Structure formats: C-alpha cells, structure tokens
C-alpha cells in the first residue's frame, strides 16, 4: 500500500502541475492580468481532490472498498455524491443555457431530470441495496442463470457507460477548451488522466468524495450567483421575471426564433412569449418520448445504481435518494434564475455567439455579476465556475468509468471467466484496477477520435438504452414472480438493439440529401429576399429599416451556412446508415423501445422455463423487502 500511496502523490502532483502550467500559458477568456486567478482557482480545486485521493488510497484494500467504499458511506454523503454524479455538464451548463436561449421550454426540460428520482426512490434504490453487491448484474444474477445474465448485463452496462462517457469526454473537451482556452486534445487528455488517477488509486472512496466536493462547490457557486442576481428585486419572483421579459435583448431573441410570426407582435407580447411553451420543443410526442426515457432511464443508469451499494442499509439508501432529490431539485430551481438572469444580463445573442448550445450562459453570467471581464471579482467568479465545470466533468466521468470497470472485472472476469468461484481478494482488486485503466484509456481514445462530432444524441441514447433494457430487467426480476433468465436475456438484447436501432434511423443523424435541399432553397430564395430587404431599407420607416438590417445579418448567415453545407456534403446522398431520410420520426426512441423492452422480458419469461428463478423467488422477494442478511458495511 505504501507504494500505491506514493504513486498517487506523484501522479497527483504531476497532473496538478502540468494542468496549472497549461492553464497559465493558455489563452484564457479572462483578461491577461487576471490569468493568475484562473490558475490559482484551478490549482486549488485539483490539489484538494488529489489530497482526497491520497487519503482514500490508503483505505482501498479489498474489492468491496474499491467498488463500493466498503458500504461505509452515509445517506447524507451519498445524497451529495448522487447529485455530484448526476449533475453532468449537460444538465449544469446545458439547462441554464437552454433557459437563457429558449425561456420556458428550457425550464420544463429540467423537470424530468428530478422526477426521474421518484422511480429510483420508490421502486429501485432499497431493493437494490438489499439484494446487490457491486453491480447491476449482481441483481439480475441473483435468481437467474448467473453466467448468461452477467454477460448480457455487463454488455448493456458497458454500452450505456460508453455512450454516456463519449458524450462527457467530447462535451468536456469542448467545454474545457472554451473555458480556459487549451487545445481540445489536451483537454481530453487532462480530464482522462485526472479521472484515472482518482479511480485507479482511490476507487469508490475517492470517486465519492470528488463527487461530493464537486456538488458542494456547484451548489455554493449557484447560490452565490442567484443571490447577486435576485437581490435587486427584493427576492420577488414576478418582479424579476417582469424585468427579464421587458429586456430588449430577450424580446429580440424571441423575434428571431419566431421569424415571420413575430411581425405583428408588440415588444411586450414578444417578451411574454419567452415564458410560454413551444420555442424549443416543436414536436410534442418527441418530448413525451424524451420524458419517458428520463423518468425510467435514470433508474437503469449503472453509475447511479452503483451508488446504492455504497451505503450500509436500505434506510440509508432511501435517505440518500431523498437528499439527492432535495439537492438536484434545488439546483434546478436555482438554474431557473441562472438561465433567465443570463438572458437579461448577458443577452441570448451574446451567449449564443460564444457557444451555439448556450453552454456558456452560466460562466458568462458569473463573470458579469462579479463586475465584468475587467474586474478582479468578475474573473474570480468566471474562474470559479469554470473550475466547478471542470470538476463536474471529471467527477461524472470517474463514476462512469468505475461502473464500466466493475462490469468488466467483477461480472465478466470474476463472474463469467472464473465462474463466480472465489478469486483471491488481492487479485480482484488488481482486476478492477486493470479494467479501470482499459476503460479510461478507451475513454480518452474515443474522446479524441470523436472530435467535432455532435454527441448530444449519445446522452439521450444512454438514457434510452437504460430505460428500455436495464430498467425492465431490474424491475421485473425484483417484482415479478414469473421473471426468469430467458426474459432477462431477451429484454437486455431486444431493449438495447431496439433503442440503438431506432436512434440510428432517426432524425438525429445527418441526412445530406435533406440538408442540401434546404441549402438550395435558401440560395434560391436569396435574390427575392435581398430585393424585399432593399425595398424596406428605402422605405424611410425606422422600425422597418431596423428589422431589415437584422434580416440582412440573418440572411448572410443562412447563405454562408448553405454554401458550407453544399460543399461539405458534395457527392453524399445518404446518412451514415445509408438512408436518404429518417425511417423513424422521433428523436428519442423511448416511447416505442421502453414498451418493447418490457414486452421482451415478459414474453421471454413466459416462453422460457427456469427452475432456479422460480425456486429463488421467495428468497429474492423476502430479502428485497426485509433486508434479511443484506451485506452490511465490511469490517476489516
């Protein structure tokens, strides 16, 4: 252990030094004279997490320590860690961004992320704690054929984690690049190495504490910003909102989004429209489908399920979900203010100019509220939020890598290759560490290879697979007497294939033919549009002229994009899957793939026979409800 601890310290120090050196040299968004602030805040956050890993490394002796922190985490700690694991950059920066750009729809989007935890709380968390040990497949293998269910379970866990991981690595790389100005490849590498050093040396203990620290920093930063944004309005919600929608920048944004429909609307009507649905979500069924994937998918996310094995009892598991819901929900309520505050103070146009997805809304608001780009406090706030965003990516990635590595080492290597026979504890920990290095290296490689790809769809896909394969299997094996091996194998395979397959033929992919057709339409209409703009310019009416000059900018942009698209897709007619147009119209497959996943488990179970699954039902049901013999915190 002495050796490992020393190694941790060395790696940690090296990582901290190299990152801070990179940050110091980088062309940051902070003004030159304040670069040392960014440097200092990043160094402080990294050194803090490294110190924790150093302390944690001494405590990781067994496989149980590595995978589940020996079951010794309390409910409150686990609640913060779940929040830290769950509030990825996509929800932390992305939702504030969506609200700042699209108003109401962005806020509505955040609701599903919280409601998801009701499913976890009522149906999944406590039984998992009572039945499981380290992984999702432990639950499936309890009454079903351990070999078969571990193979399909591990494959599904690795699939979900890889989708989610790729999205996080690519998103993280872009984000770190935007926030502190270092190269994309370097960002991915730094995130990967830092995450690997936490997981490799500190296992679940270090991962948990990194997630807790990140969640605390995130909430603290948000509370501070919201206080600064909201105080001038005497903490009145209607007064704040009225000021937001009375802002010309917000009204101009709504006018741009609505296009021709905005022609006859007054500024006040445009502002009010920002608080009404429909600016972002155009297809209601799509949104319901996405809602289903969120509400049922969270309960099937391996890195979230794994967190329930870190607490000693079902009561603590329950307590941890309630805390997580308070923290996550509270955070999304704060996001309401972050998003609308950014729209009012920074302006949707300025936010979209830095990042089209709105990811920079939170950081830009922090900088503004601290006093702007030329003040110490403004740069301190920007650096602080950037450091929190960085910690967020690392913490989420660490949780995902641990989940994938446990499926590889515990389910496939110990469970399947060694047939579940007792593998020496030292060897189990070594297997876990080797798997961690494999998954971590893979994450870095995929992250770099997927540079420039649109990966947002991968997060939706991870939730869809979790909801269509993992969730039906876990739920039915815990609650349905007839459920058996055939059902689990069928559900895992059909649920996954269905979710992935439907996504591959969905509108999420790029269809060159359609893109080119749209581009031609823009170019064909250009002459007529220029003529009408010119006419407006000569009309002498100030309002019409202002509109016309805005139209010119938009038209120039559209023409440039159309020409770019035509060049990019020259000679291409079909999508990656060889299709000219989507076969399936929904962006999220949940509405179809979730019922199909359930149906597969049910039909498979009814068609198959499995004596063990029947015999073990009494034990599974008694255990999941009473916690008899549930493994308590490991004592050394």
């Amino acid at each position, binding site marked *: 252990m002495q050796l490992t601890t020393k190694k941790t310290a060395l790696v940690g120090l090296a990582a901290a030094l190299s990152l801070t050196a990179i940050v110091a040299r980088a062309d940051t968004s902070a003004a030159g004279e304040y670069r040392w602030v960014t440097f200092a805040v990043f160094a402080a956050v990294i050194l803090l997490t490294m110190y924790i890993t150093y302390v944690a490394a001494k405590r990781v002796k067994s496989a149980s320590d590595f995978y589940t922190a020996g079951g010794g985490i309390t409910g409150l700690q686990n609640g913060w860690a779940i929040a830290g694991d769950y509030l990825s950059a996509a929800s932390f920066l992305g939702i504030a961004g969506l609200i700042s750009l699209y108003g109401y729809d962005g806020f509505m989007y955040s609701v599903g992320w919280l409601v998801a935890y009701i499913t976890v709380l009522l149906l999944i968390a406590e039984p998992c704690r009572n039945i499981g040990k380290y992984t999702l497949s432990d639950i499936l293998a309890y009454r079903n054929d351990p070999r078969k269910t571990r193979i399909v379970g591990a494959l599904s866990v690795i699939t979900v984690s890889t989708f989610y991981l790729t999205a996080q690595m690519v998103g993280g790389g872009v984000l770190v690049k935007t926030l502190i100005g270092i190269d994309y490849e370097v960002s991915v590498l730094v995130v990967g190495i830092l995450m690997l050093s936490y997981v490799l040396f500190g296992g679940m203990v270090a991962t948990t504490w990194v997630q807790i620290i990140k969640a605390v920093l995130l909430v603290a930063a948000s509370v501070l910003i919201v206080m600064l944004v909201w105080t001038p309005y005497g903490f009145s919600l209607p007064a704040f909102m009225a000021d937001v929608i009375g802002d010309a920048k917000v009204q101009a944004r709504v006018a741009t989004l609505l296009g021709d429909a905005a022609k006859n609307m007054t500024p006040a009507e445009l502002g009010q429209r920002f608080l009404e*649905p429909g600016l972002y979500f155009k297809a209601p069924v799509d949104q319901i489908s996405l809602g289903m994937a969120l509400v049922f998918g969270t309960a099937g996310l391996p890195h979230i399920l794994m967190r329930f094995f870190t607490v000693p009892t079902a009561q603590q598991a329950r307590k941890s979900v309630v805390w997580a819901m308070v923290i996550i929900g509270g955070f999304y309520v704060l996001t309401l203010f972050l998003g609308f505050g950014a729209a009012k103070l920074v302006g949707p146009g300025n936010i979209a100019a830095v990042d089209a997805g709105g990811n920079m809304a939170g950081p830009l608001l922090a900088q503004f509220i601290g006093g702007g780009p030329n003040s110490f406090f403004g740069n301190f706030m920007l650096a602080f939020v950037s450091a929190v965003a960085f910690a967020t990516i690392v913490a989420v990635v660490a949780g995902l890598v641990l989940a994938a590595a446990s499926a590889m080492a515990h389910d496939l290597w110990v469970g399947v290759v060694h047939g579940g026979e007792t593998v020496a504890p030292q060897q189990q920990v070594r297997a876990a560490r080797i798997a961690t290095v494999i998954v971590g290296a893979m994450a870095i490689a995929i992250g770099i290879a997927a540079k420039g790809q649109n990966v947002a769809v991968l997060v939706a896909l991870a939730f869809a697979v979790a909801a269509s394969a993992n969730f039906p299997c876990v739920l039915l094996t815990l609650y349905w007497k007839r459920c058996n091996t055939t059902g689990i194998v069928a559900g895992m395979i059909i649920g996954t294939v269905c979710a992935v397959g439907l996504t591959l033929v969905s509108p999420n992919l790029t269809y060159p033919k359609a893109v080119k057709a749209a581009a031609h339409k823009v170019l064909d209409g250009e002459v007529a549009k220029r003529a009408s703009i010119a006419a407006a310019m000569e009309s002498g009416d100030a309002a019409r002229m202002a509109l016309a000059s805005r139209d010119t900018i938009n038209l120039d942009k559209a023409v440039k994009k159309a020409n770019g698209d035509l060049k990019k897709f020259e000679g291409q007619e079909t999508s990656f899957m060889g299709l000219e147009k989507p076969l399936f119209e929904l962006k999220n497959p949940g509405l179809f793939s979730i019922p199909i996943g359930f149906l597969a488990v049910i039909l498979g179970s009814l068609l198959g026979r499995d004596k063990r699954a029947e015999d073990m039902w009494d034990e599974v049901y008694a255990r999941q409800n009473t916690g008899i013999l549930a493994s308590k915190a490991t004592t050394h």
Partner: protein
Amino acid sequence: MAKSDSIDWAAVIADPRFQQLHRKKTAFLWGLMAFSVIYYFLLPVGAAYYQDLFKIKVWGVLNVGLLFALSEFVVAWAIALYYSHVANRDFDRLAAEIAADFVKRAGG
C-alpha cells in the same frame, strides 16, 4: 451470522407480518408511482396541447405553465418526504421485526 440456506424463505413469505408488509407496500408504492408519473406527464402534454391554458397570467407576468412547472418540484419533494415518512414509520418496523425473528430461528 446466519447463512442464506439456513433461512426458510417460504416461511418468511407465508408469515402474516410479511403478507401485511407486502400488501401495504404494494398498494402504497404503485399508487404513489402512478400518481407521480401522471402528474409529470401532465406538464409536456399541457405544454403541447393546452397552450392557451398555460399562457393565462396568474401572478404578475407568471403564467399557469410556469407555476405548474414549479409545482412539479414541490410535488416531487412532497412525494419523496411522504414516502420516507411512511416507510420510516411502518415498513422499517415490520421489516426489522421479521428479519430479527427469522435470523434468530435460523440460529444466527
């Protein structure tokens, strides 16, 4: 500690206290689950098909849609707190009683 095969699991299931726990939990959990799912999906359905209702201003510039979205948070928290209250009060006591009894019978 008692071993898994030393406990008569069929007897646990047949125990009247377990049956009581099972009945209480089943009705309570699935009822609460159904309510929360329906309440959640009212939001996207309302935003899509009842836009006129969602646009009615209620509190200053705040409209029905915004207040309804905020109520989702309050309802989610209320469900979580209500569930833990009932579980801490009823389910845990029954579960602990059954567990202690059967582990003792198995000679643990």
